[in-house]
């Protein structure tokens, strides 16, 4: 467990049980005990769904506990039974900690340093203290999800209460832990249970406790204010949201978020629907508390969260498919400034339904829609074109993001567009400026996508020889162009298409290739280890290539590449340079996209998946992307030539000076 990682207070709609390190560990940390060793307990709801325990071992170096996170909407009344909780993480079912409804934010940043209540609604997780080794094991895996320290939270709560009671003796209530945010309920007793533990490093604890107590006092005040205003907050947010959006978007655009993940977070009405979970806007860095909070403020849309979410991917949003549209209409169309341009609206709907898929297609559709937008744009009075157009673009991008998260290539394109707009000379007339931007967009599409594809095709066909067997996965437009071009050059080869559920994108490619007369073999990904033995070369597309040579592409391509590597079959990734990104990603979990679960069709005759959403024990995971390490890649074919995966940062570096990129 990395103590520096944020604690994510993810609250399950029902009960969330968070375990913590058993007694043995606690006794090692007398310091920790002072703060709050034990963990608050919640009422164990007998009807809770399967608890997904999140391991939270108490911290060694006790961090400064921050204020107990409060959900923004006022939670249902909490029961506070103050109890003395033995230090050794014992299980105390009688304690109730946080209210059970928890809108919470997977407060990505539960870092010690940073979960200030002032920054936004952290959520108070309800935890159950439980000593279980199983949880401990789990914690190692889920540390980025679960709150690394329920103890911290508890500490906060404890100190909060503690502060009220005995501000002068912060050291004594060592063992008490409970997370209660409502100050008005008195804490009965703080009899330190683990007195023997507390006696030892009394001095240190005092100092720390004093500091903590001071902080708690501040936070307490804020929390109280928040609690009372909680009910009003939701409405206020809704009202303010439309005003805030413009500003926030602008602020956001200045943030240089290169991937342009402008997601809007869902604002939960906890009082109404206890099943909904508040989520932070999916940002590039999910553990950044400030971003989470900012995104929350910008929340425009209420989206229904699916009920049962896989633990490991809780930081990624997953919404109930189809529920987005009504919300979209409500929020986006009653405000003129936020109203998306009809072309953009159309493109957004096409994304939503999956009519347009694939990085290049989506990017081109988006840029074409933006061209329409700019054509129809008129600078309103009293506004400058640059700022207003940027704001307009931001709004439209937000709309597109709510339909479907942006892919990295789109992010780069948007960044390019905004840079271009920002660089417009102020002396230009409106029509000149508009035609200039439109010309720039055309040039981008022409150079970065069309021309690049041509170059890649030309280079790639030199690698295809007579007698080759080429394997491809899913359906990449570049790979399709390469195959068709090689075929038109008269090369004799055959193609193996590997496909996978639920999207079965390979079928479309198969149909198109067969229509041209290319001999194809079609296989499911389960058989890739079998079919790879007859294959010479593998050509794959990519959604993006990251700075360490890692390829971010459709889920399943990493497996194909790994198998190819094991069989010493060269893997060629065909990717335009505008899709390169300076981010680095080590695994497929920290950043991904979860596709709508409703899109998973069952097979005829097999009905095990029917009614899956009712089952509380079944959780579906529908990933869109995965990450392929550079070791599996033999070469990357770009319009600049064929380069090894280690040269991606070189290209980024060399072409950063080029304003196009």
């Amino acid at each position, binding site marked *: 467990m990395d103590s520096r990682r944020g604690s994510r207070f993810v609250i399950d709609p029902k009960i969330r049980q968070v375990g913590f390190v058993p007694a043995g560990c606690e006794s090692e940390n007398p310091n920790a005990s002072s703060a709050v060793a034990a963990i608050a307990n919640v009422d164990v709801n007998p009807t809770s769904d399967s608890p997904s325990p999140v391991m939270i071992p108490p911290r060694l170096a006790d961090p400064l506990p921050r204020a107990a996170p409060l959900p923004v909407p006022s939670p249902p009344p909490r029961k506070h039974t103050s109890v003395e909780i033995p230090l050794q993480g014992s299980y105390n079912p009688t304690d109730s900690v946080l209210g059970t409804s928890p809108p919470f934010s997977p407060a990505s940043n539960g870092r010690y340093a940073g979960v200030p209540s002032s920054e936004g609604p952290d959520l108070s997780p309800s935890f159950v203290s439980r000593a279980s080794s199983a949880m401990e094991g789990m914690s190692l895996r889920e540390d980025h999800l679960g709150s690394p320290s329920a103890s911290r939270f508890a500490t906060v709560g404890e100190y909060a209460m503690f502060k009220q009671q005995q501000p002068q003796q912060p050291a004594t209530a060592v063992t008490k832990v409970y997370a209660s945010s409502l100050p008005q309920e008195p804490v009965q007793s703080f009899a330190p249970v683990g007195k023997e533990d507390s006696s030892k490093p009394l001095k240190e604890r005092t100092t720390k406790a004093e500091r903590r107590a001071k902080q708690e006092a501040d936070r307490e005040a804020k929390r109280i204010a928040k609690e009372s205003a909680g009910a009003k907050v939701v409405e206020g947010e809704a009202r303010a949201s439309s005003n805030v959006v413009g500003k926030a978007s602008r602020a956001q655009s200045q943030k240089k978020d290169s991937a342009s993940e402008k997601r809007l977070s869902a604002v939960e009405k906890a009082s109404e629907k206890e099943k909904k979970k508040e989520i932070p806007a999916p940002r590039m860095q999910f553990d950044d508390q400030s971003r989470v909070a900012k995104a929350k403020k910008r929340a425009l849309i209420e989206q229904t969260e699916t009920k049962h979410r896989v633990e490991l991917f809780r930081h990624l949003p997953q919404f109930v498919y189809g529920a987005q549209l009504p919300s979209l209409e409500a929020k986006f169309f009653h405000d003129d400034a936020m109203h998306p341009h009809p072309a953009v609206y159309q493109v957004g709907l096409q994304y939503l339904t999956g009519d347009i898929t694939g990085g290049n297609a989506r990017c081109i559709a988006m840029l074409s829609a933006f061209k329409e937008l700019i054509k129809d744009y008129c600078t309103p009075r009293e506004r400058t074109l640059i700022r207003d157009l940027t704001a307009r673009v931001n709004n439209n991008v937000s709309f597109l993001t709510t339909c479907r998260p942006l892919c990295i290539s789109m992010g780069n394109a948007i960044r390019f567009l905004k840079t271009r707009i920002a660089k417009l000379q102020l002396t230009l007339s409106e029509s000149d400026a508009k035609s200039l931007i439109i010309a720039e967009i055309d040039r981008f599409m022409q150079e970065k996508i069309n021309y690049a594809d041509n170059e890649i095709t030309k280079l790639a066909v030199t690698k295809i020889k007579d007698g080759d067997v080429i394997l491809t996965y899913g359906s990449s437009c570049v790979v399709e162009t390469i195959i068709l071009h090689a075929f038109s050059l008269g090369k004799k080869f055959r193609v193996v298409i590997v496909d996978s559920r639920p999207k079965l994108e390979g079928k479309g490619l198969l149909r198109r290739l067969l229509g041209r007369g290319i001999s194809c073999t079609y296989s499911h990904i389960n058989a890739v280890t079998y079919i790879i033995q007859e294959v010479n070369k593998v050509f794959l597309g990519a959604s993006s290539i990251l700075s360490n040579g890692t390829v971010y592409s459709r889920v399943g391509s990493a497996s194909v590449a790994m198998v190819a590597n094991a069989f010493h079959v*060269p893997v060629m990734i065909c990717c335009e340079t505008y899709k390169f990104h300076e981010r680095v990603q080590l695994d497929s979990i920290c950043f991904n996209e979860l596709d709508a679960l409703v899109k998973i069709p069952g097979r005829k005759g097999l009905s095990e998946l029917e009614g899956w959403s009712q089952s509380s024990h079944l959780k579906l995971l529908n990933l869109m992307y995965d990450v392929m390490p550079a070791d599996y890649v033999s070469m990357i074919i770009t319009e600049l030539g064929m380069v090894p995966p280690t040269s991606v940062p070189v290209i980024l570096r060399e072409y950063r000076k080029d304003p196009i990129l």
Partner: protein
Amino acid sequence: MCYVTRTSALEYEDIEVGKARLIERGEQIGDISLKARKTIAMLGQDFIRDGSTILTHGFSRVVLSILKLAAANKKHFSVVCTEGRPDSTGLQMAKEMVAIGVPITLIIDSAVAYTMESVDMLLVGADGVVESGGIINMIGTYQAAMVARSMNKPVYVAAESYKFARMYPLDQKAMFPSSRQVDFHYPLPSAVQVEFSSRDYTPPQYLTLLFTDLGVFTPSAVSDELIQLYL
């Protein structure tokens, strides 16, 4: 190649002036090559320590310049050299080593794995360095590099920067064929096929470092240099 293509001489209208420029360029390349070898020798001889044994494959002037400079700097080392069939250039290397007073052992090509445990490094030249960071060199280099890698011996390549090429071979057959007649000293029946290639491609994962006149590179840096040179 860049020295030729990047000259502005080709833009001259007067053919005589153009010709003179090209000739001048050609001589320049000869000078550059010589200077490059000196730089490489200086960089490379740092890697030769007293008491080390160096395995080399065939004959390479660049490798020779490294070894000469190391010997001149009074380092005590010994060299094991493969015969290098079909060229038998290893014999030439042996002669040169005797001339500079370095103890030399000559082995047949098949004995590379046998001697690898007693050498400290493999040092070869290159006919070409490709974009992936691999090298094209005399046939036999690939297997020597593979054996060295499997026994954790470093593989050093000495090559001038003008040998960098924008090729990216995927396998051995991807290169232009260059063949050399092999004399087996035995009358073969005509039905026997003989493999004639005289060059092979060593992928970058078997190479440790490349000594070039632009510096000492890892194989990944070759592509970096190429991108800067050509783009």
